[in-house]
């Protein structure tokens, strides 16, 4: 399953993952006297992966058959069957690009309040962890990166955060570690059971295990639960979301940006890659539960956000709601929903990342995040208000901006699969408008008095940092076709994988032709023969080449 790797740059993903870590080592070795060089070095170590990621984007073959591109595999712990196996497909490509771009922006945009050396070193280690999680195709390698991100984020929150930072950091660490602790047992159990059922040696290779579904239905469901718990904590899904408001609120600005934009996506990405792909039958079985939790998250997050007095906490709760959309899109289990989910992963990263940056700017100027202490900021800071408006509207899901495309697709998919849940979720869109517009009104409108009237507007550097965010927001809203073109083959492959391995499951969209099909949003034709070349060994034994999926021929 090693897809055609680009010959011009071998091991590009490995380099991509390791460059930030190397940068962190360089930072630690730098002499104390040259503290002026810390930021440039950190920036360089994060710009290099960003450049590589953009290069990946241009080289990525949207029409390629097979799942993973730029694959690369080495043995790591031979005796235990663990390998270093990396690759990207349409699901992870944009997450990798977003991650690689988000870190340099966070480094440029926000300076630490103290001790820059360990701050930048932790940020770079965090980048290695996040990138490694998105490209890992070996279960243990995935787990290792999934878990290692806790350490730098723990120190970023605890060391550079505000308020009850030690409490928030410890809570964050223990919550997420608890989820992944059980996942480790599930990963090992999966590998051993798979090996004994298929008669091969123990291997943790994702593709090998996923493409050869041999586990008993019940076993797979238990294992799915263990995986889903770890991802649910990370996403976070209701009711294991309680670490999120504390962590986001007390983290330093860059920490909140990375947490919201990148780290929450580790969970949703995991649900797709290690939920749907590894356990198709269990995913179908548990889909109603996951969709329900997602809908609860949407409504609960929106109501909780509306009630917050702290601007940053409000944005944090809005993440709970937005991530709920991604989960229902994913577990709609059809092309529209999953495509929308993947788009929303990127969109939420862009919008909420930008929102946290803006809140950070306000906090830096006013040293308060209490909404009641703010007001009328529009007059002293018109540029900031304008940027905030665009970002907020993107988060609300205004047509023409990026959030709309993703949410529409998610709701479309959910409508086909779980009609009434989609109706409830759609109410969440309105609620999002309520709490965000209300917050905007209280913070930016009205008369500015006291310190609020003297608040300086955005500086040049801050404005420049916001430019890529605004560009992405508008571009993805107006012309999402290039993104969808690259995401869709991977989504189709996953959906086809589910159909091939679950007896009696057919994508709901096959029967009911949706009123708005993906063609209107710019789908490229000719992907329909994208069915994966497996299924003969599948437990279900169903080997239709694609009769089941996606009725229209483009």
């Amino acid at each position, binding site marked *: 399953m090693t897809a055609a790797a680009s010959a011009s740059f071998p091991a590009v993903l490995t380099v991509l993952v390791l460059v930030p870590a190397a940068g962190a080592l360089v930072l630690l070795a730098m002499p104390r006297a040259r503290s002026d060089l810390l930021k440039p070095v950190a920036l360089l170590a994060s710009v290099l992966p960003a450049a590589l990621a953009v290069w990946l984007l241009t080289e990525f073959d949207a029409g390629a058959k097979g799942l993973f591109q730029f694959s690369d595999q080495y043995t*790591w*712990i*031979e*005796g*235990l069957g663990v390998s270093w196996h990396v690759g990207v497909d349409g699901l992870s490509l944009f997450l990798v690009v977003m991650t690689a771009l988000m870190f340099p922006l966070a480094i440029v945009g926000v300076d630490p309040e103290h001790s820059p050396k360990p701050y930048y070193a932790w940020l770079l280690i965090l980048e290695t962890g996040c990138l490694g999680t998105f490209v890992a195709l070996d279960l*243990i390698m995935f*787990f*290792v*990166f999934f*878990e*290692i991100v*806790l*350490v730098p984020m*723990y*120190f970023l929150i*605890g*060391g550079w955060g505000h308020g009850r*930072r*030690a409490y928030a*950091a*410890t809570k964050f*660490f*223990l919550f997420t*570690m*608890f989820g992944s*602790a*059980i996942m*480790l*047992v599930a990963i*090992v*159990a999966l590998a*051993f059971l798979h090996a004994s059922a298929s008669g091969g040696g123990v291997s943790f290779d994702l593709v090998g295990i996923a493409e050869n579904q041999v586990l008993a239905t019940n076993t797979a469901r238990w294992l799915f639960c263990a995986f889903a718990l770890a991802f649910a904590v990370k996403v976070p899904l209701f009711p294991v979301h309680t670490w999120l408001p504390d962590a986001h609120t007390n983290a330093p600005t860059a920490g909140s940006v990375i947490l919201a934009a990148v780290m929450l996506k580790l969970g949703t990405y995991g649900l797709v890659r290690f939920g749907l792909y590894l356990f198709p039958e269990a995913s179908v079985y548990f889909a109603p539960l996951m969709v329900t939790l997602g809908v609860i998250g949407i409504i609960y997050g929106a109501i909780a956000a509306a009630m917050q007095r702290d601007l940053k906490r409000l944005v944090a709760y809005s993440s709970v709601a937005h991530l709920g959309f991604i989960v229902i899109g994913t577990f709609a289990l059809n092309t529209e929903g999953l495509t929308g989910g993947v788009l929303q992963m990127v969109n939420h990263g862009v919008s909420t990342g930008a929102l946290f940056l803006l809140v950070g700017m306000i906090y830096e100027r006013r040293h308060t995040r209490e909404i009641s202490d703010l007001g009328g900021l529009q007059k002293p800071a018109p540029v900031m208000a304008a940027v905030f408006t665009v970002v907020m509207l993107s988060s609300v899901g205004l047509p023409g901006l990026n959030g709309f495309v993703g949410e529409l697709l998610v709701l479309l998919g959910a409508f086909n699969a779980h009609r009434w849940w989609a109706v409830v979720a759609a109410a969440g869109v309105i609620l999002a408008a309520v709490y965000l517009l209300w917050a905007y009104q209280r913070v930016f409108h009205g008369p500015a008095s006291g310190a609020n009237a003297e608040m300086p507007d955005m500086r040049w550097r801050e404005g420049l940092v916001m430019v890529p965010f605004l560009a992405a927001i508008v571009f993805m809203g107006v012309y999402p076709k290039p993104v969808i073109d690259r995401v869709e083959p991977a989504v189709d492959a996953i959906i086809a994988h589910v159909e091939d391995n679950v007896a009696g499951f057919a994508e709901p969209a096959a029967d009911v032709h949706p009123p708005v099909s993906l063609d209107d949003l710019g789908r490229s034709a000719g992907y329909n023969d994208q069915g994966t070349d497996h299924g003969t060994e599948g437990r279900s034994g169903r080997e239709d080449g694609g009769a089941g999926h996606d009725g229209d021929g483009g």
Partner: protein
Amino acid sequence: MGTVLAQLEPVVTPAVDWAGLLPVLLPAAGALVLLMVRSLVPSRLLPAGLDALWTFAVVAAGFVAVVVLWQRDGEVTAFGDQLVMDGVALFTAAVVFGSVALAAPTLPRYCERVGIDSAELCVLTLLAAAGAVVMAGAADLIVLFLGLETMSIAAYVMAALNLRRLESLEAGLKYFVLGAFSTAFLLYGIALVYGATGTTSLDGIAGYLDTFLVLRDGMLLAGVAMLLVGLGFKVAAVPFHAWAPDVYVGAPTPVTALMASAVKAAGFAALIRVFVDALGVRADDWQPVVFALACATLAVGSVLAAVQSDAKRILAYSSISHAGFILVGVQAASDTGVAAVLFYLAAYAVIAVGSLTVVAVLSGRADDRTGLAVLAGLGSRRPALALGLTILLLAQAGVPFTSGFVAKFSVISAAVEARSYWLAIVAMVSAVVAAFAYLRVVVAMYFGDAGTDDADADDASPAMGLGAASVIVASVLFTLAAGIVPGLLESLSSSAAGL
């Protein structure tokens, strides 16, 4: 006269492969030489730090001997198969020697500061090491007992060596009384197993149980249970752990490091020999008991670690929780399990000595400044030291890219392979609880207020010394290296387990 003698049959003494016995002989002889030199030569003629240097040299030589024996084909047996230097024995011996070698460089400065005679400590350390290697290489229950006693008696005295500190004396007494009590259990267990199988040889017991079906097995089972109690005490498995926290805290800190590393390794090697090797046929009988022991050890160790407010006590309870993890590997009763146990022992020994060395550096003149308050603000006062301790603590928590993660991963693999899913889950969940304990230390070092305590300047920022510094650096590097490229250590432990 000559004719009479000629008529006697010559006494056949068993052939002894002296070279194969070097891992036992070197530390024993080293201890005796050091004892003689120190008693005969006036101290002023001897350079300072000689004891620690000699100890280091002896165990380094022992390590080389282990490496040479490892290269040989086939096992080395001695004294009519009473002692066997096979994979498990050699690997454990290497762990023991490694722990002593890591603990030794700290000793000169520590002993000078706290006022302990380093010669006594070094002699006892070497004797304990010799006992530990005998235990690891025992092919007979009686020899196992001899090794255990040699090691334990040295350890009892070492725990009480800090004569000026009451807790140290208390630790020695407690360890001795409870240790003697548990040894009695072990001895009675040996007697009962002998009664049931007619042999004390481990191979003999395995062969007997393999050949005959013991129908009325009450005596055998009672003996097995008593053996488990005796050895469970040595490795501080709950509910035989009550001595451990007080002894760990009361003993001089480098001695605590040795108890958490070398003594623990020898105890687990003995557990493997007796239970997995000799009683492997009856695994169905003892596995449930070890399952329960492991669960209790994991839960009690990690929960109690999380509520302590003293760094040394946190490490003591966490050492109990690690014993629980290692028991998970023993419970699997398989070669994979043994390999996982050995890997864990090696990884944990280095981590334990490293972290306790940091504690020893900071523990002040009376060796009692080990509260979390002492660590407050360490991150800004001594960034390198704090970073070292942080890495070692994260390794104990099982964070990836440290040896601690690979150790936990391999133990969990062994448990899952043996279908002990619940044990694996209990182990991982208690790892999270234990992580809270380690995070408390980290919080104290980095996120707490810089503590204002009434210590004098020397105690507040003690000079670390080259010895302790190199020990900490070495253990951190080993921990990271074995976490990032675990292949070498993993293949060594696998081949030691006969995989």
